Each structure stands twice: as C-alpha cells, then as structure tokens.
C-alpha cells in the first residue's frame, strides 16, 4: 500500500468512533502492534526527549528502506508509535522526508502535535525524520 493508502485506512478505522474515549481505547489496543525495539536499544541513546513517558525509537536501513522499531512505558504512547510506524515503515528516506502526514489531523490527534504536548508525538515524528535525513545523507 502507498503511504496515503495507509493513512486513508487509518482515518477510516478511526471514523467509526465519535467518542474520544473510543479513540483512545483503539490506541490502547493498537499498542500491542508496535514493532518491538530490540532490548539492546532501550538505552538513553535511543530515548526521545520531550515526553512524559519514556519513548525509545530505533531505525535501520535495509536495502534502501527504513525499518522502525519502538517502545514506550506508557500504553497510549505505544499506540501512537504504532500508528506512526504503520505509515512510515519500510519507506525510502526520500519518501519520509517528503511525506505529507495528514492522518493525525484527520483522526483528531493534531492537538497532540504541539511541541509543548507532554506525549511527545511531535518529538517522535521529528526523530523519525531525522533518521531519514541521516540515512539519505549517508547514501549519497
């Protein structure tokens, strides 16, 4: 599926909820889907600043595509990571750098994108893009 197809799919999945709590229940359920980060990467080096919960994120480049894994000690945060990875996983650095991420807004989580927000969605996204930029630079 293309990035946008996945985004559209997520938007559709969320569209059935009109209650905030149901959306969060769904995020909680998604948490188990997060591609688990290898324990060796659960170190300060992979910790993302700016979240009230702890968030680790790891990325590696295999055959031109970026593979993300992550984890958090908070479940909702894990659900958010899971969504981000769904959309961004196994893409080229270029795709990630140029991405137009509209699903967050459409599912009503855009308030969470504020850099001041304690959940650090903005910080995670920034970190993912930084990985992409780094891999892109390396491959040149």
């Amino acid at each position, binding site marked *: 599926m293309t990035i946008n197809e996945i985004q559209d799919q997520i938007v559709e999945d969320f569209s059935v909820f009109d209650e*905030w*709590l149901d959306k*969060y*229940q769904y995020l*909680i359920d998604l948490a188990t889907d997060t591609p688990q980060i290898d324990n060796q990467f659960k170190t300060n080096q992979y910790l993302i600043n700016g979240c*009230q*919960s*702890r968030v680790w994120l790891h990325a590696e480049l295999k055959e031109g595509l970026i593979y993300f894994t992550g984890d958090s*000690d*908070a*479940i*909702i*945060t894990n659900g958010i990571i899971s969504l981000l990875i769904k959309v961004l996983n196994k893409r080229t650095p270029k795709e990630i750098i140029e991405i137009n991420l509209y699903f967050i807004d459409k599912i009503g989580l855009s308030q969470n994108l504020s850099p001041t927000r*304690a*959940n650090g969605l903005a910080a995670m996204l920034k970190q993912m893009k930084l990985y992409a930029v780094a891999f892109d630079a390396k491959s040149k």
Partner: protein
Amino acid sequence: MSFDIDKIRADFPILQQTVYGKPLVYLDNGATTQKPNIVIDRISDFYRTTNANVHRGVHFLSDKSTQEYESSRDFVAQFLNASSSKEIIFTKGATDSINLIADAFTQSILKKGDQIIVSALEHHANLVPWQIACQKTGAELKIIPINEKGELIQSEFENLLSDKVKIFSIAHVSNSLGTINPVKEMIAKAHQFNIPVLLDASQSVQHIEVDVQDLDCEFLAFSGHKIYAPTGIGALYGKTEWLEKLPPYQSGGDMIDQVSYISSTYAEIPLKFEAGTNNYVGAIALAEALKYVQNIGLKNIANYESELLNYATQKLNEIEALKIIGTADKKASALSFIIDKIHNYDLGMILDKMGIAVRTGHHCTQPLMNKLGINGTVRASFAIYNTKEEVDKLTNALLKAQQMFS
C-alpha cells in the same frame, strides 16, 4: 461566614467551562488555582481607572497607585501576621523568593564547611537553588529522609542539627504527597542551634492557617497564583533584622537611595529588595485574593478541604490495584496515587478525556520519586471550589480507565 460551596463555585467563572463536551473537573490546584471574579475584576478595574507607576510620581494617579500598592503590602503582612509591612517583599513567586534568599546567603553567609538542611520532600524550587549555593560556596547539602508514609523522620532531622548549619529550608506542605510537616516544632529545634529557617509555604497558605510570628520562621515564601491570585506575583516574608542585614538581590531603579557613576547606596527595606518597576497590579490583585480567602476563613477552608481529602482517600482506596503514595497522618490538598501496571501518564490522558484535570509525572520532585522507586504519580489536588461529586467523578473515571487498560 459559613462555607457555602455553591456561592464559592459561582465566584469562579472557569468552573462553568466544558472540556471535550464534559463539565470541567479541575483537580490540578497544586499546579495553579483558578481565579474568582473579584480578583479578575480588580485587575481590569485598576487598569481602567487608576493605573500609573508607583513610588515615583507627584501626580494623582501615581499617588493613588502607590497607596493601593502599599496597602496591599499591609494586607499581606496582616494575612501572615507579620509584625510590620516592611517585612513583606513582593516577588515574582515562590521560586523568585527562594532564589533571593539563596543568593543573599551565597553572597554574605555561606562558606566552605558550612551546611544547609532541606528535606527529601522538596520541590525543585527549594532544592536546586541550595545545590547551586553549595556549588558556589563549598557548603554541603543535608537531606532529611522520609519514612514509608512520606513523613520526615524527626530523629534524623535532629541528628543533622549542628552549629555548622547556616540555613534550614523546608516545605510547609509537600506538593506531591500532601504531607503537612510539623514545622513549628522543627523551627524551634533549629533555633536551638541559631539556625535561621526559610519556610516554603507554596502549598500551605491557601489551605491552612499560617502565622509567621507563631511559627517563628525567619523567612517565608509563597506564590500568588496558587492562592487564587494572578501569575507573576508572590511574596517573601523576612524578619526585619534579617532583611536589614542581607545584601540586595537585583539592582536598578527604586531600590537605591543615591547613585553616582561610581557607586550606589541602597534604600531601606522592603524597597532594597524590589528593583525596578514591580508587578504592582499583581500585588494589588494578590491582596484582593487574600481578602477573599480571609473572608471565607482559613479554618473553614481547612475543615472543608480536609473532609474532601478524607472522602477522596476513602473512595480511592476502594479501587483495586490503586495505591496512594503519601499516607502521612497530617495531609493537605494533594492526593497522589498510582495504579498497578498502568502508567501515570496513560491515566492522566484518559482522565483528561473525561474532563478531569489532574497532574501526572514527578511534580517537580524528581529525587523524591526516585527515592520512592516510581516514575511518577497521578496527583489530584483540591481547592475550596471542589466537591464530593467531583471526587465521585474521579473515582468513576479511574474505574473506567482501569477497564480500558485491562
């Protein structure tokens, strides 16, 4: 005056607010309180009719502003039962007040080999300034440990007392656990070694009676925004003889007497410690908020809030897997807890979606959280406008959250 909760709630316009379509249940009063109309209106009215810079003018408005500013100082003095208005310095808030004292001690008193005592319960605002004072002077920081209920261990405190200790700085009420420390007794013990005491009253002045002459502390700090007053204003109380001997903190206009290009002499207290244009409108609004509190009566407030806290404690204790953090015999306002296997942050997010505002995390008491071996708590903190119905909403929301995460 009796305690009329409906009338009180009607005084606070923000309580009529809804959040995600749900009525707001504001239980984050430890972070900041909401403001009654009378305080909000005082600010607007002042700007609409009276505003001019204080202390410096010959003109009518300047004189009127100055009078209102100085009578606000009188009122703060009366509220704390200070023996004179000149013992009240208006600051930006508790952090500013504590930094002022820590700086003055760094400049003029602390030396290598000296000691400073704080407690394991302190907010960063009453810890980091003393760490820095130690770094600058070579003094050493001593920490009074807590027992498993979150109470200071008095025998350990007594062991720390000695002639080496140059200041003892302690929270009256713990912001994260709610513990009311027995400060009157502790101050008396410190005085046996001539140790001056700074009381961080940030979490006490709004909840229980505070009388500086009865407590006999040398200094006391609090923030306006936690006692129904605006942001950007706070007070520092200091005994006259101490304020007179300590060096000034910031410098600029108003705090000086004579200035030449070479050097300057300082004004009398309290102006010596108020450099520049102070937040005089904030000070006036602070006095208005304190009047509001005094009208309700701190005894009434303490009774009402303590009943609320007991009710909440009992209700929350009924929730399985919930553990209250901080079970001191004497507590005020704050109720911290964790639920097994659910991150405090997850809980906070779900409560938020049900319109309930609580604080999560370390509450600016990181070392305390480390000590307790937890990454943080959910904290509900109560103020005069909270109700048992709100406690019930909290309880139900927590049960609901538990389901969601199971």
